[in-house]
């Protein structure tokens, strides 16, 4: 299953930035009796936005943007960043893309803490590849740079159909004393259900044996639970959510050849009343950057 995610960044002047990201996901299979692989290619426009850095505290964004709900959608989603390739079960809650306007920024609250925030409004769109819901919401986070801890909360109000609310909390900690990256999210939706995930990624650089290999190797574990909401099986499938309560444990590893180039593998076991399933993942992720020209 190849995934290609092109990102385009065009700085304009001192304060403007045009940025866009597409996603092409192919699911190829070799039918019985056929010698070659065939399958559909899913195409998405994740974001296409114009950013204006108004001052050190506020950036204004207009266009199509990633909905800032929790940390996974905006920060961890790219395949070269995420520690485990399967996305968390609760990922569809509150995330996706919106079309509208957003204010965001990061502000030092004191010498010990930085506050980051995002507030947004998205309009309803049914245009092919530019779909979005009419909604409003916000996210606020407090980052403690000494401790490398971030705690935050998200809120979202749907302004159409059932007018459901969603809320979430996120936590991230990268201790100074150990090469550990601990992240967690909880999300609740009045329509879709609720759940959480906790993930730890540990770089094996503290192991003294085979240092050349160990310092590039990362072990990852994630556990998660999902409690299904009151939606029909069809609606749940549209959202990409399980229709019943589910639990999952994932174990994996990454080998970083360098920043942006890694080999990855994982094993996951899902438990639900539909049955228990194994999920194996193996792949590589490569991110490269090159200048398109001079403006």
């Amino acid at each position, binding site marked *: 299953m190849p995934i290609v995610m092109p990102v385009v960044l065009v700085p304009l002047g001192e304060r403007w930035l045009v940025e866009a990201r597409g996603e092409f996901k192919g699911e190829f299979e070799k039918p019985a009796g056929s010698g070659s692989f065939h399958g559909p290619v899913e195409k998405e426009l994740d974001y296409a936005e114009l950013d204006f850095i108004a001052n050190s505290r506020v950036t204004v964004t207009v266009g199509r943007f990633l909905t800032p709900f929790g940390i996974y959608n905006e920060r961890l989603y790219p395949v070269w*960043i995420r520690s485990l390739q399967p996305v968390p079960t609760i990922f569809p809650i509150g995330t996706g893309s919106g079309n509208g306007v957003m204010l965001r920024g990061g502000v030092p609250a004191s010498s010990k803490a930085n506050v980051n925030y995002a507030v947004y409004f998205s309009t309803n769109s049914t245009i092919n590849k530019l779909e979005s819901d009419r909604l409003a919401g916000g996210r606020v986070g407090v980052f403690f740079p000494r401790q490398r801890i971030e705690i935050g909360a998200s809120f979202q109000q749907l302004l159409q159909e059932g007018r459901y609310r969603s809320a979430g909390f996120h936590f991230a900690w990268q201790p100074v004393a150990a090469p550990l990256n601990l992240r967690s999210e909880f999300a609740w939706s009045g329509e879709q259900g609720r759940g959480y995930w906790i993930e730890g990624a540990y770089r094996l650089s503290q192991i003294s044996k085979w240092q050349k290999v160990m310092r590039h190797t990362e072990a990852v574990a994630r556990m998660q639970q999902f409690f299904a909401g009151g939606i029909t099986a069809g609606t749940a499938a549209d959202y990409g959510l399980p229709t019943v309560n589910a639990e999952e444990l994932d174990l994996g590893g990454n080998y970083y050849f360098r920043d942006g180039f890694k080999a990855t593998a994982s094993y996951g076991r899902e438990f639900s009343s539909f049955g228990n399933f194994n999920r194996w993942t193996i792949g590589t992720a490569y991110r490269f950057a090159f200048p398109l020209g001079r403006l």
Partner: protein
Amino acid sequence: MTSRHLLCGLLALTLFSTVAAGKAGRHNDAAPVPVQHSMTDDDVRVEGEKRFQANCGRCHQSPHKFPPRMMLTIERHMRVRALTTDEDMRLIVRYLNQ
């Protein structure tokens, strides 16, 4: 597992992070210092690396070297995406361009 387990888990996580924050806060070597224009190259390297690890290191591996022009574009992208503060970003860019 029930919602009670979930609540207990979240409470434990909050407690754990609060204790960890208190302990880690005693390490003065990790404390950020204000940006000063008179900072030497060594100061920039030390402080910039510290801020790179605290901000960028949450998602990215060791610093990747790009030409300065590309670095400024990436800096603007990351400032919007990761909501890094103005001061942190200036030090990180100076460090990465060294």
